[in-house]
């Protein structure tokens, strides 16, 4: 151990002085020697890195400490809404959940519903502030002014595939519900279910309602909908809402989707102001995209516009067939799915910046998301 440490130090010194030793006025053999020392030092760097033995329990204990801490802090902010879940995001009681959790039966004529708090089982009357069917989001407000335990909404843009995440919710209504014939959620049991997994992919295109989803392998089942997806520092990075299933077997498959928190943030203010109504997702109408294989190939440059419908938003802002879209709102676009994911996840009126290549030149169009065309 000591030997290795001193070896490391020695080569560090060589590395630091490498430029001087390897200067033009040095003999060729010396430069070669320097190169050799450099190579050795890099190797030793590897040896001295933190141990990453597979299955190391020291690291797993650290993970366990982080997960139990997040559970301890986060569970009181998780609530049971209808046949799903939700999460309190402010001390005054704003509750974020999925739009599809707001089933017709759970709201009274004054747009109110009763939610159940984790652990205590306290029932609280909530007012529906707004819903966004396009993004599968809904915002409620606990009528009791609080203060309530809440979780901070984090930055889903920082998520990377492989990052550990925690999902909390009420799958199969295991807590607080006795309607289940297989396991009775018993009275007095208001403990939500927690599952641990990793981010499998970001910006997954899972239309119609999840055009820009976080894919996770943490166990998600019916009832998890509306519950939070959390980072190991306890911040909300997603609202769990969808699972891939086969046949009629509606249970966890290891492919779950969450609405990214950054999308929820875009809709938060419109939802607050919706007075119980719907917040439409903004659109850029009239864009025809050819889904070409090369678009999804590694290193693909952008997405080519196949056609533009007349009298559409796309034609009005001057887009032309053949334009190669490179970036939208500063997000690099390499696939048609990613382009759709960006274009379908902003509220009406949000700024829209499109960077594209036309012929040999690059253009930038600045406009805004429009209202969806009225169905007649």
């Amino acid at each position, binding site marked *: 151990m000591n030997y290795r440490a001193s070896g490391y130090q020695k080569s560090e010194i060589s590395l630091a002085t490498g430029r001087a030793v390897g200067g033009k006025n040095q003999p060729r053999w010396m430069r070669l020697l320097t190169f050799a020392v450099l190579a050795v030092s890099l190797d030793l760097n590897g040896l001295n890195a933190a141990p990453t033995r597979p299955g190391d329990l020291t690291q797993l204990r650290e993970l366990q400490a982080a997960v139990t801490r997040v559970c301890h802090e986060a569970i009181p902010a998780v609530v049971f809404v209808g046949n799903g879940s939700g999460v309190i995001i402010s001390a005054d009681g704003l509750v974020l959940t999925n739009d599809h959790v707001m089933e017709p039966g759970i709201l009274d004529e004054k747009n109110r519903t009763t939610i159940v708090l984790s652990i205590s089982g306290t029932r609280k009357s909530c007012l529906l502030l707004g819903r966004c069917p396009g993004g599968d989001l809904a915002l409620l407000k606990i009528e009791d002014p609080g203060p309530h335990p809440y979780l901070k909404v984090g930055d889903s843009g920082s998520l990377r595939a492989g990052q550990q995440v925690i999902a909390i919710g009420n799958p199969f209504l295991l807590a607080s519900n006795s309607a289940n014939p297989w396991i009775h959620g018993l009275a007095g049991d208001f403990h939500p279910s927690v599952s641990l997994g990793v981010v499998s992919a970001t910006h997954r295109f899972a239309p119609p309602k999840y055009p820009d989803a976080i894919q996770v392998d943490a*166990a998600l089942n019916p009832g998890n909908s509306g519950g939070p997806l959390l980072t190991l520092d306890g911040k909300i990075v997603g609202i769990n809402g969808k699972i891939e299933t086969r046949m009629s077997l509606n249970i966890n498959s290891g492919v779950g989707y969450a609405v990214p928190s950054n999308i929820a943030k875009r809709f938060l203010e419109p939802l607050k102001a919706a007075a119980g109504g719907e917040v439409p997702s903004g659109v850029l109408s009239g864009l025809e995209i050819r889904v070409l294989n090369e678009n999804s190939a590694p290193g693909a440059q952008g997405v080519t516009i196949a056609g533009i419908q007349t009298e559409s938003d796309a034609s009005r802002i001057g887009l032309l067939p053949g334009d190669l879209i490179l970036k939208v709102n500063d997000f690099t676009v390499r696939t048609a799915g990613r382009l759709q994911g960006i274009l379908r996840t902003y509220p009406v009126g949000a700024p829209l910046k499109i960077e594209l290549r036309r012929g040999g030149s690059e253009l930038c169009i600045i406009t805004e998301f429009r209202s969806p065309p009225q169905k007649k």
Partner: protein
Amino acid sequence: MRPAFLPLLAFFSATSFLLYADDAPLDSVQDLVGLMGPRVVSIHVERESTDDTALHPRFIEQLKELPPTERENLKSYFRRPGGPVTGLLIDDDGHILTSSYNVEGSLESLTVVLSNGDKLDARVVASDRVADLALVKVDKKPVASLQLPELRWAQNEDFQTGSLVFSLGRSPDPSSTTVTMGIISAPARQYGRIFQTDAALNYGNIGGPLVNVDGHILGIAGFVGHRYPIWGLNSGIGFGIRANTVLEILPRLKNGRSITSPAFLGVRASSDENSNKVGAHIAQAIDGLPAASAGLRANDIIVEFGGQSVRDFEHLRQLIFDRLPGDRVPVKVKREGALKEFVVSLSERPQDL
């Protein structure tokens, strides 16, 4: 430091090292699996393959409601796959704990394969279908040759939401231990008898131990409460019979007492029950069942059950759940303002209820 102290210091550090080594934290999951492996056994169950009892009893009940052809199709789909299941060797006498589901049905033979490959005839000592636990016994001589690690049961404070859970199995290949990893999803369900985990539990590792990072046994992987009785499809919602439940039930199992049904009182709750009133309000005492037989009737309010005051109907449910069929329980009832005492003999749950 003065040289005279050095031998003494050396002695102390050696002692403390030895003490520490005995209790040393495990280094890796591989160590954990290697340490616990000898306690994990494979159980080969031979039963009549067409026997309905190979299915879970609750599921059989649901099947009865289906048209015959659909019923047969589903039965073949839901029937247990072949292959062994897992058990936990709990002592040198050859006692093995497993899920009662694993040894349900009319068994033709039961063979246990130890970690060293020894194949032993086994028998079911007793099973508890409510707790989903069974005790299996093999000859103690072959077990004595195994290097069994100390058996340490987890304490109540070990059940923290988010704590790591390792499910150990010995199936389908009896020569190696399998492991799946997850966390405690909920520390206590079903009145604290079971806990919930997202570690993958499937036919095969059910019946095996669920251990924590220190190698302490949190419980036995159980069938209890699976949402869908379809093997091979882990939903991420699995349940373990908690260590405290296991330790509570074990003496009963060793005495050969099997439980096939929860205890039953035979009363229905009053729908207008409100939380301000103390006690369980009875809308109906079903004819021929324990409560009615003991003299209880509609509009009675059960205020005490087995010496414990009853908060509400849900609390009564829990108090009954903690009892066994056949238990004789003193009950205090409020009837028209007066307090009356009865003794009820709890029954098994009737088939039609």
